[in-house]
Each structure stands twice: as structure tokens, then as C-alpha cells.
């Protein structure tokens, strides 16, 4: 089978200016932060970043990489911290944004994953999400006449997800909650999986029930030990590195300090 293993730099090289990137994980949980830091240090710009976001999106905004954010929420859930760069960017009107609910963004990914233009849902009815995002339309169900939201497909150029272990062929284990990564990887043209360890497939096979990433979806596999730090990865490290998160927050709004932070981590 094809060897899909690559380096962090090779992953970054496959991303283009203006790309839409969807990032797996949830808040501070199992986020591919080594890959995110590499993007923050790169020359990439004008990215659209989607996700159930935490420090991943915030760091990319702080580093000036983000043109538009599409989010179900922005919170450092699972760690101690606050999305300072997102908050500041929204206050100053510095980025474009599409703030959805959790199920609305997931519905958009589901539509993209199934190559259909929208996904029907009740989520969003009666809220200001529809008012501030007029591109999201409602429709009457053809069978019952019920009013539903037609959540538009949210397709990405690139998906980044983090796994426990992977094989170079493009299989990977997720030992905790797979969250929505199985949908996310079907909603992107290129999928890069970072893993704590890249191991031979016969080793990976021993943990068969946790293999939740499958090779047809995967473009590249990259080994990044502690790749979700300072967030958490079950069961490898389940306590957030709150001091590192605090160091980030202190640096986020100051270009010099942020550079020093990125140089250190």
C-alpha cells in the first residue's frame, strides 16, 4: 500500500493561501496543535478556519492567518483559558465570521461529507443565527410542510485531525471520543492526520476496535509526539497544560511575545 507518511513541513506545503481548513477535536480536546503551530509560523494567509474551536483557531487568528472563522463555538473547553484573540478580533471587526450552533456546523459538514448541497435541521429556528447569516435559508419540508433550516454544505480544502496512533498507510486509532472527526475527514479534499506515534500496521491492528480513521480518506500521516499539547488527548495526557495555555494567552495580543511563544513551543 501507498506510504502516506510525511513531515509537518510537507503538510504545511500542501496548504494554499485562501484555503478553507477544518480542524478536528473540540475546544482543547484532541486538537492537532503541532500542525496548527506550524501553520502559525508559516507564510500562509487568508485562511478560512472551521471547527468546534478552541486554542487552534485563536492561535491562528493571533498569528494573522485567518480571514474568516466558521464556528460552532469558540472556547478553551477542557483547559483553563479564554479565546482572547478571537474576542479581540470580533470586537475590532478584524475577521469575517459565521457563528453557528454546534449541530448547525456539524450538519454543514454532514452535507459536505455526503456531497449534497444542504442538510435539513431544526437547529437555528427562532434564533438570531439566521438573522445574521442570511445565506442560511429555511424551506418547507416537501412531505409535511414543516419549516426547517437548510444548512448549507461546509466543504473544506484541508482537514487536520489528531489521533493516538497511525500507520503510514493512513489508518489511525482514536481511543477516546472520536467527536466529529469521522464527519470532518469526509468533508475535505485533503486530510492530514497527525498522531502521537506512527507504527507498523500489524501493531496498529492489535487495537482494532479503536481504528476510526481509514485510509481512503487520508492524504497524509505525520508523527507529532504530544501533538495535542497544551490540550488533552485521551488516554495519553488527560490534564491540560494550563501554564502553557496561560503563556499563550499572555502572548496572544502582542506580535513579539507571540513569536517568542511560538519559538519556544
Amino acid at each position: 500500500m501507498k506510504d502516506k507518511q510525511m513531515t509537518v513541513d510537507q503538510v504545511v506545503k500542501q496548504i494554499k493561501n485562501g484555503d478553507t481548513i477544518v480542524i478536528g477535536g473540540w475546544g482543547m480536546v484532541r486538537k492537532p496543535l503541532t500542525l496548527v503551530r506550524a501553520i502559525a509560523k508559516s507564510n500562509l494567509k487568508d485562511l478560512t478556519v472551521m471547527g468546534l474551536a478552541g486554542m487552534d483557531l485563536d492561535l491562528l487568528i493571533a498569528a494573522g492567518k485567518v480571514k474568516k472563522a466558521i464556528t460552532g463555538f469558540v472556547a478553551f473547553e477542557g483547559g483553563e483559558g479564554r479565546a482572547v484573540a478571537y474576542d479581540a478580533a470580533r470586537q475590532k471587526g478584524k475577521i469575517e465570521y459565521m457563528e453557528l450552533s454546534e449541530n448547525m456546523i456539524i450538519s454543514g459538514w454532514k452535507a459536505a461529507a455526503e456531497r449534497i448541497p444542504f442538510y435539513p435541521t431544526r437547529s437555528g429556528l427562532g434564533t438570531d443565527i439566521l438573522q445574521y447569516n442570511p445565506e442560511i435559508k429555511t424551506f418547507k419540508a416537501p412531505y409535511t410542510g414543516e419549516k426547517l433550516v437548510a444548512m448549507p454544505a461546509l466543504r473544506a480544502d484541508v482537514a487536520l485531525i489528531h489521533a493516538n496512533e497511525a500507520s503510514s498507510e493512513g489508518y489511525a486509532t482514536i481511543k477516546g471520543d472520536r467527536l466529529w472527526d469521522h464527519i470532518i475527514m469526509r468533508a475535505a479534499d485533503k486530510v492530514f492526520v497527525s498522531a502521537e506515534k506512527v507504527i507498523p500496521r500489524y501493531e496498529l491492528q492489535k487495537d482494532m476496535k479503536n481504528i476510526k480513521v481509514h485510509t481512503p480518506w487520508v492524504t497524509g500521516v505525520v508523527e507529532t509526539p504530544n501533538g495535542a499539547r497544551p490540550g488533552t488527548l485521551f488516554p495519553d495526557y488527560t490534564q491540560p497544560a494550563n501554564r502553557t495555555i496561560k503563556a499563550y494567552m499572555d502572548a496572544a495580543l502582542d506580535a513579539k511575545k507571540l513569536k517568542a511563544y511560538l519559538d519556544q513551543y
Partner: protein
Amino acid sequence: MAKATNAATKTKSAAKTASKKSAKTELAKDYTIEEQLVCAMAREFGPNDNIALSGVLNWTFVAEALAQKMYGSQLALHHDYYLVDGSGCLAEGPRFPFQVGDPPPDYVSCPLTSEDIFAMVLGGKWCIMMQPVQVDKEGNCNLALIGDPKKPDRYFVGSRGLPDNSTNSVRTYFTVPNHQKRVFVDKVDFRSSAGWGSERRAGEIPYGAVEKVFTNLCVFDIDPKTKQMRLASVHKGVTVDKVLKNTGFKPIVPKNVPETAVPTNEELRLIREVIDGAGIRRLDHGTAEEKKAVFDQINDGTKFTQVYPDRR
């Protein structure tokens, strides 16, 4: 919409049939506002209800435990410990730092994935109770931001799962620990949840309506005629005037506003001796100093990991 068994009615009729008032249904003489509030919240739930809590209000944990013990409510989820270590959400009886009671003996602990959880929201399996940033007279709530949504003064976390819960869950409840004008506003800065606005009044949103709002002063419900927030009851020692002075909109005020239901001795015994011996229900309102005093008094050095043992 199916309403849960009304525990208050149950208690009343039980009292009628008994020749002598038993200790179980006897109304308590000495109780605090927190205890009154916990009982009022718990009485909303019956044996067919699953309760999901979002946020960190301790009195909702106690209310949830009381609902399980007295009214047989089923699954209980705590969103604040949700996914913290990435292993999935732990579904089990209420257990939290400083907690002294055990989960019900028939309770099964198991991890739930995000997908399991949203399946329950979308499939209409649970009632949600959470703490909003703002609530308005239509029962809309805001969790997202403060100020102009295009350039907010402060961005919180976004609307999260509230647009999903308020259009799909069985019932929605809010709880507010510090009843004040900046929480209860005429119109929320951003509608994160679908209250009783034009869409719901037109019958376009069949599920997830807000039923009640529990605060440290009173209980609001929804006036069946106008579909606006109505002052349902005030807690012990709280006047209607005090509620109105601290509310930024004009709620519907009936001629006679009753006191919030008085706890029974049995409810109090469960709260004080079985569920919350430590008294975490006192942690939610008051000044920062008052809270810290309670916290120091409660904290026996118990660590989170001791309460939630290793799940691997």
C-alpha cells in the same frame, strides 16, 4: 407537549389521603432560599425525564440528584465535566467535588460520545437546564456575546448547543444565580435560544420550549395567553417589588403571586443528609467573599480526580 408528572400535585394528594400528615409530606418550617429553589427545580421532573445540565451551578446538581431520588428521573449529564479528558461524557448519578452522596445503586456509568449526546438532543430524549447570560420577556436567551453582535463588547463562547436544544429537546429551563437588570433585559443582544418569539407563536417550532426560569429571587413561567414571562412565585421573604426592581423588563404579574412551593421535611432530609451534606447548594449566589467563605468551609481537600476515579 407531554408534561412530567407534577410532583407538587402528587405530594398534595398524598397528603390528603393520609389520615395524619406523615413526616414525608409535612411542610418544613425552617428552610433556606437555596433549598426552596432546589425543591422547585426538582419537582419539574418525573420518571420519564432525562436531565442534562449545562454550566456550573451547584444547586442544579443538587436539584438533579433530588429529582432522581424523589421522582425517579433517569439519565443525568453534566456538561461542565463533559469531555474534559476526551474520553467522552460520563453519564451517571450526580457526583461532584465535595459531594457526599452516592449515585443511585441502579445507576450505570458509561461514556457517551459527542454523537451519542447530539442523538439524544435531536431525538428528543432530554430536558436541558442551563445558565444564560441574558433572558428577555419572550423567554429568549443569549449565551453568545454582549453588545452589538457585529462588534460585541465581549464575546463569550457563542451560542453552542442552545439553538439545538431549544428547538429539539423535551423542555428547556434556565437558572440565574444573581437576579439583576442586566440579565433580565427587554430584548437580548443575541437570540441564542428560540424562546416564544413570532416563530414559536406561529407554531413553527414544535419542540424545546422554555418552561421556567429559576432565580435566587423568584420563578418565572410563560403566560399561556401572551406567551411572555410571568412571575409565577417569589421565594421566602422576597417581595414582588424587589423582583420588579431587579428585572429589566415588565413581566406579567398576576394579582396574587404565591410563595415558591415550601419544601417538605422529606425533601429537606434528602438534601441535607443524603445528597448535599457539604452544602454546595450555597455556592451559587452572594458576593464573591460570601462564596469564598462557603467554599473554604466546604473544601476538605478533595480533588476532582478523587471524586471522578480513573476511567481508563
